[in-house]
């Protein structure tokens, strides 16, 4: 579905990502962990071609890739509904108000209000709802659980699992280890710009112990 080979990225001579290789396949959920500044967001921005990089990323041209940025952005004086309509039109998709209303019964967003007046949790929910309406083959979610409220977390997890069932691919990052172990088929760990470990099949406690001991030097006596 999407293959990354020897991806490296430097900012002003400082290496942020070094020889990153991944192969994301359809019908799977990939989790990426790492500390702040480890390079997760930069990797996602490279996948979305928002940054220039060395190495290669190959994907089929017909493949639609969606992206959830870690920082919500909405124009001032634009309602939630107008935001959704704008994104759908930008993706050349028809606007099905019934579908939007039906989906919003779960998300419970005041779509007639300006999106900038929403709380952080509501903003994240609006972004996720818009992604859900766009029918992507692969979605890249940068810290999707950050700032998300309880209902949002449940809806997001349900949607990610549904994507998998539909044979689509999800790549996400999170600091919450248990969130990743709950839903991901493959979990890798980026440390100082390099993929240093794969924790597939391990429990949240085991992953926490291993990261604390080998990478962060945080083991308690």
């Amino acid at each position, binding site marked *: 579905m999407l293959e990354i080979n020897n991806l490296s990225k430097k*900012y002003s001579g*400082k290496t942020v990502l070094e020889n990153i290789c991944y192969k994301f396949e359809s019908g799977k959920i990939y989790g990426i962990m790492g500390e702040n500044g480890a390079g997760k967001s930069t990797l996602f921005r490279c996948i979305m071609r928002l940054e*220039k990089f060395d190495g290669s990323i190959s994907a089929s041209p017909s493949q639609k890739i969606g992206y959830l940025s870690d920082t919500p952005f909405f124009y001032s*004086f634009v309602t939630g509904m107008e935001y959704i309509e704008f994104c759908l039109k930008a993706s050349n998709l028809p606007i099905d108000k019934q579908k939007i209303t039906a989906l919003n019964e779960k998300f419970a967003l005041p779509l007639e209000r300006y999106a900038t007046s929403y709380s952080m949790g509501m903003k994240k929910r609006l972004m996720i709802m818009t992604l859900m309406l766009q029918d992507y083959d692969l979605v890249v979610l940068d810290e999707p659980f950050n700032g998300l409220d309880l209902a949002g977390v449940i809806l997001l997890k349900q949607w990610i699992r549904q994507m998998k069932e539909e044979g689509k691919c999800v790549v996400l990052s999170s600091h919450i280890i248990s969130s990743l172990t709950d839903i991901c088929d493959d979990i890798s760990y980026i440390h100082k710009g390099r993929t240093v470990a794969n924790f597939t099949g391990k429990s949240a406690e085991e992953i926490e112990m291993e990261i604390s001991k080998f990478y962060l030097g945080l083991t308690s006596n």
Partner: protein
Amino acid sequence: MLNLYIKLRLKTICRLCKAIGVFACVIILAVFIVLMIAFTRNLPYQTTLLYAVVVIMLHFSRPDATFLQTHFPATFKRLYIIDYLAIAIPFIFILLITNGILYVGIVLLLIVAVPQIPRINLPFQLPTFPLLSDGSYEYQRAGRLFLPFYALLLLTAAIGAYIANKNLVIVVNIITVAITGILLCLKINRTYIFNYVSANHAIKIKCKHTFVNAAIIMTPMLVCLLLVSPSWLQTGICLSFYVNSSMFFLQLIMLRFICPEQDLTALLVYIVLLCLFVLSAMIPLFTFASLSVVAIMTFRARSSINKMLC
């Protein structure tokens, strides 16, 4: 795609005008155009320079860059062009009125060229003005955002001094004060306020920071102004500029406490205060009006801080 974006932007602009009030919008635009024409009547390159500063600053601080690039990967640069063209309209209008038709070409070139500049991520901490008061985080932040453009403005002021063009140096000074002022208009973080022992203590520290930092920021600019035609009168003008710019910064710092949430009101007040600063810097008699505004705003800010501390 262009239609979709233009429609959205027009809708947001109309709603913004409605929120501010159509009459207020017309007044703001008219004041801006009148001031620009008054100061750049025979010097259209100053209008062009101001446009370049505005558009470059906007380009490097666009919050919608990722959003647009994700939704319009092939056409986002054209969308930037639309935005920069919209901003250019009043500038082009001023240039046409002031016979700066040649400079219209430069503005049009900037509209197309600026979107091509890659937006860079800087992994290191940006430098700020040296010697700023310790603890004056607003000024340190403003310096980090503004220093590269400040350097350009200082260079322009130095050129103005060298060619003895007083108007150019004055305009650069006003631009410097206006941009520094707008960068000081940070939203108040209430948790910071609890660090102050009392409202009086907060006001005292803010005043001290303002007068020290205004001297640091404005001295190089004012030296250029003095060098245009060194004389006692010019020294007086420079002093007037320093005192009034300090008071303008102080008014804006107080404004943050008075209007912590009302962004649109604060914007309108900012424009009025900027006009008052320009007037009082040019006509020293208005300095008393400015001083009175400082006193009133400080009193109001003191009450607001007291409420926050209670």
